[in-house]
C-alpha cells in the first residue's frame, strides 16, 4: 500500500479495523444481553416444569384388604353412619401386616405403615360407602403411597447411600421393591392435586382450596376495580374540568401505580382489618386490597382507550342531539370497550399473581376447607405456593412447582385472551 493519502495509510487502516472491531463487539454485547435475558427465562420455566410435572402424578399400590364384616358392620345394618365410623386405618394396617409378615416389633411395623399415605383409610372408606356389597369380602383397593415412598419411585432416593442419610431404611426399600416386582405399584394421574384442599401430608395436599380462594378474591377485585376504574376514567377524560383538583386526582393515580404492593397490604391491615373490623383471612378484604392496587392499571388503560376514540364520533353524536352522557354511554364506551377490557384483564392477571399484600391481611393461614364465600377464611394460589415453598418436607418442592405451573397456565390464558381481544376488536382510526 502506498502511503500517499492520509485516509489510506497503514495507520488509518489499522484504526478503521479497530473501529469495526469495536462495532462488532458492541453488537455482540447487545445480542449477549438478549441471550442472557432469554436464557434466564428459559432456565426458570424449564426448572419449574421439570420439577413440577411429577407433582401431577402419584404412585399408588394395590393391596388386598380383608373387609371383615364383624369389624366394619357387626350388626349387618348397612347403615352408612355405622360403615363410615369403622376403623379402616386398622384394616389397612392389618392388610399390610399380612402382606409382609416379616415386619415384627413395634418399630418395624410402624415403618411398614409409613409406606402408605394417611389418606389410604379415607380412600378405603369412600369405596366401601360407595358399594356396600364389598363388606365381608377380601377387597382389592388401590391406595396412595406416602410421600417418601412416592419420591423413592420417582428416583429421589439413592438406595446405595448410607441408611442413616435417607428417609427410608433398608427394610422399607426392600418392601417397596417387592411391591414393584409384583407389579402392584402404579404411577397414576393424581386427581387429588386438583380437587383437594391443603394438607400437612404432601401426597394428599391439593390446590383446589387455594384456587377457589383465588377465584373469590379475583371476583371481588373485578367487581370493585372495573366499575370504579371505568367510571373514574370516563370522568377524567370526558367531564373533568381542568383545575387543581383534577390535577391532584391525576397525580394521585400515578403515584398509586408506583406504590409497592406491600404498602397496600399495610393499608388493608390498618384500615380494613383494624379500623373497619372486617374479617381476617377473607377473600373480601383480599379483593378490596387488590382492587385498590389494580385500580390505577384499569384507569390508565381505560383512559387511553377512551382517548383513542376520535373526536369526530363525539361531535357527530352531539350534532344529532345526544346529551354528553349519552355520547359517552352510547358511542364512546362501546368503541373503547376492547381496550378497556384488555387493560382490565392484564390488571386482573397481575392481581392473581400478587402475594405480598395478602400476607399482611392474614391470608397465610393453614386452611384445609374449600372456602364457601367471600367472608370465609381462604388462601390464594400464590400464597399457597409461598406456604409450600416454606415447608421443610421435601415432597412439597414438587407440589410447589406443580402449583406454579397451574398459576402460570392461568396467567398465560388470561394474557392470551387480552392479546386476542386487542388484535380482534381494537380499531385503528
Amino acid at each position, binding site marked *: 500500500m502506498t502511503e500517499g493519502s492520509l485516509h489510506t495509510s497503514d495507520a488509518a487502516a489499522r484504526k478503521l479495523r479497530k473501529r469495526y472491531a469495536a462495532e462488532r463487539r458492541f453488537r455482540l454485547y447487545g445480542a449477549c*444481553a438478549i441471550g442472557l435475558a432469554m436464557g434466564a427465562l428459559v432456565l426458570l420455566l424449564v426448572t419449574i416444569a421439570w420439577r413440577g410435572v411429577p407433582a401431577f402424578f402419584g404412585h399408588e399400590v394395590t393391596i388386598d384388604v380383608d373387609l371383615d364384616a364383624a369389624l366394619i358392620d357387626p350388626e349387618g345394618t348397612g347403615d352408612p353412619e355405622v360403615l363410615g365410623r369403622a376403623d379402616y386405618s386398622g384394616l389397612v394396617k392389618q392388610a399390610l401386616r399380612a402382606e409382609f409378615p416379616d415386619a415384627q416389633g413395634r418399630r418395624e411395623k410402624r415403618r411398614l405403615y409409613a409406606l402408605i399415605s394417611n389418606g389410604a383409610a379415607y380412600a378405603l372408606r369412600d369405596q366401601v360407602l360407595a358399594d356396600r356389597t364389598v363388606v365381608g369380602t377380601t377387597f382389592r383397593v388401590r391406595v396412595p403411597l406416602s410421600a417418601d415412598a412416592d419420591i423413592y419411585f420417582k428416583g429421589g432416593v439413592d438406595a446405595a447411600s448410607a441408611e442413616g442419610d435417607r428417609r427410608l431404611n433398608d427394610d422399607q426399600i426392600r418392601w417397596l421393591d417387592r411391591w414393584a416386582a409384583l407389579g402392584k405399584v402404579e404411577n397414576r394421574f393424581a386427581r387429588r392435586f386438583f380437587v383437594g384442599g391443603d394438607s400437612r401430608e404432601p401426597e394428599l395436599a391439593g390446590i383446589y382450596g387455594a384456587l377457589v380462594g383465588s377465584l373469590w378474591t379475583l371476583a371481588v377485585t373485578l367487581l370493585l376495580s372495573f366499575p370504579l376504574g371505568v367510571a373514574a376514567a370516563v370522568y377524567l377524560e370526558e367531564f373533568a374540568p381542568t383545575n387543581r383538583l383534577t390535577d391532584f386526582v391525576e397525580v394521585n393515580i400515578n403515584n398509586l401505580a408506583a406504590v*409497592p404492593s406491600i404498602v397496600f397490604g399495610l393499608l388493608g391491615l390498618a384500615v380494613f382489618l383494624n*379500623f373497619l373490623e372486617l374479617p381476617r383471612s377473607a377473600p373480601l378484604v383480599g379483593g378490596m386490597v387488590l382492587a385498590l392496587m389494580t385500580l390505577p392499571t384499569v384507569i390508565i388503560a381505560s383512559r387511553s382507550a377512551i382517548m383513542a376514540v376520535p373526536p369526530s364520533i363525539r361531535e357527530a353524536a352531539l350534532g344529532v342531539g345526544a346529551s354528553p352522557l349519552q355520547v359517552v354511554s352510547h358511542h364512546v364506551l362501546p368503541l373503547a370497550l376492547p381496550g378497556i377490557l384488555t387493560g382490565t384483564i392484564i390488571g386482573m392477571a397481575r392481581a392473581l399473581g400478587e402475594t405480598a399484600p395478602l400476607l399482611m391481611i392474614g391470608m397465610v393461614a393453614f386452611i384445609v376447607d374449600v372456602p364457601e364465600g367471600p367472608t370465609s377464611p381462604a388462601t390464594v394460589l400464590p400464597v399457597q405456593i409461598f406456604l409450600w415453598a416454606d415447608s421443610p418436607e421435601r415432597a412439597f418442592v414438587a407440589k410447589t412447582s406443580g402449583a*406454579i405451573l397451574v398459576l402460570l397456565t392461568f396467567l398465560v390464558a388470561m394474557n392470551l385472551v387480552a392479546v386476542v381481544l386487542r388484535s380482534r376488536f381494537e380499531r385503528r382510526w
Partner: protein
Amino acid sequence: MLLPLTALLLGLTAAAFALGRGRALAVVQGNASLLHSRPAYYGQWVALWCALPSFALLLGWLALEPSLVEQQVLSGASQEVRGLPAERLELFVSNARALAEGGVTSTVPDDDLIAASERARRVTGAGRWLLSGLVVATAIGGLWGARRRVSRELRARNRVERIVRLGLAASSGIAILATVGIVLSLIFETARFFALVPPADFLLGLEWSPQTAIRADQVGSSGAFGAVPVFAGTLLITVLAMLVAVPIGLMSAIYLSDYATPRVRAVVKPLLEILAGIPTVVYGFFAALSVGPVIRAFGERMGWDVSSESALAAGLVMGVMIIPFVSSLSDDVINAVPQSLREGSLGLGATRSETIRRVVLPAALPGIVSAVLLAMSRAIGETMIVVMAAGLAANLTANPFEAVTTVTVQIVTLLVGDQEFDSAKTLAAFALGLTLFGVTLTLNVIALSVVRRYREEYD
C-alpha cells in the same frame, strides 16, 4: 339476612324502573314523543329514588352495628367484666357477638357471656328485623313518591344525568381516598411507634432485633429498633439487582431498537415482557431453591464462605425480574430519538455503535435515567423474592455472600401471624412501611422531573 335483603332491594329497584317507565307512558297515553325525556329515563329516575336512600340506610346501619353491639354488651355487664383489661374485654365482646350469631366462641360460655350475648342479639336480631322493615319501607316510599311525581314536564334525563355525573366524579375521588388512607394509616401507626422508640434511634441505630420477649425480665426483652442494617441490606440487594438489570436491560433495548430486524424484535419483545408478568413468588421460589444452592456450591468450590441465604441470590434473581422494566422503558426513549440525528451521524462516517454511544444515548439520557430510577423503586419495594431468598438476620455488611435482610422482609416477618397491636414490634413495621413509601415516592417524583426538565424537544 343481608343477602335476601339486598336481593329484595334489587328486585324492588327493578320493579321501580318498570313502574316509572310505565307511568311515564301512561301519562301521555303511549305517545312517547310528548314526554320531555325518553321513557327509560323516567324508569331510571324512579329506580334511583328507590335504591339510593334505602342502600344508604343499610350501609349506615352496617357501619354503626358493631359499636351498638359493643355498647349493648357492656351496658348490662357485671362489674367484674367491666374491670377486665382492654384486650380481654375485646375478646369478651367478640365472644358475645359470636355466641349471639350462633358461631364458635374461644372460651366455654359462662353466665356473663350468655347474658351479654342475649343483649347482643337484641341488636343483631330484633334490630336487624327493624332495620329490614325500615329499609324496605324507605325503598317503597321512595318508589311511590317518585312515581307520583312523574309528569310530562319532569326533566327526568337531566336529573338522572346529574346523579350519574356525581357518581363518576366520586369514583375518581377513590384514588385520593386510597392515597390519603395509605398516608394516614402509615403516619398514625408510625407516630405511635415513635412514642415508644425515639426517631433518632430508629433512623440511626445500628442494631435491629425486634423480637421483644414476652416477660420483661428475659434477656433482650427490650428489643432494638435501629433500622440502619435493614436499610443497608435493602440497598445492597437493590444495587446487586441494578448491576444485573441495567447493563442487560439497556443493551437489550439498544439492540432491539437499532440492530434487530423487525422479525427478531417482534419475537423478543413479548418474550422480555413475559419476565415482567411472572409472579414474584415464582421468582422467589426459583431464587431460594435453584439459584441459592448453586451460588453456595460455587462459593464452596472456590473456598469462599457463602451463606445459604446470600444477598447475591436474591439480588441476581431480582435483577432478572427488573430487566423488562429497564429495557421496555429505555426502548421507548431510544426509539423516540429522531432518525435524522442517527442519519446525520452515520453520514459523517461514524459506525453504528459510535452513533449510539455518542449521539443516541446522550439524547436519550434523561429517559434512561428515569427508567433506571423507576426500576430501582420497583426493586426496593419488591417483597416476595427477598422474603423467600434473603435472610432474616440484620447484618451490617457489604459482602454479597452474607445473608442480609430488607425493609420488606422485616415488614412481613413482623406482621405475619398473631400480633398485638400496641407493641413496638408490630408498630415498627408501619414505620418501615412509611420509610418505604417515602423512598419509592421520592424516586418516582425525581424520575418524572428528570424527564420533564431535561427532555429534548426535537419537533
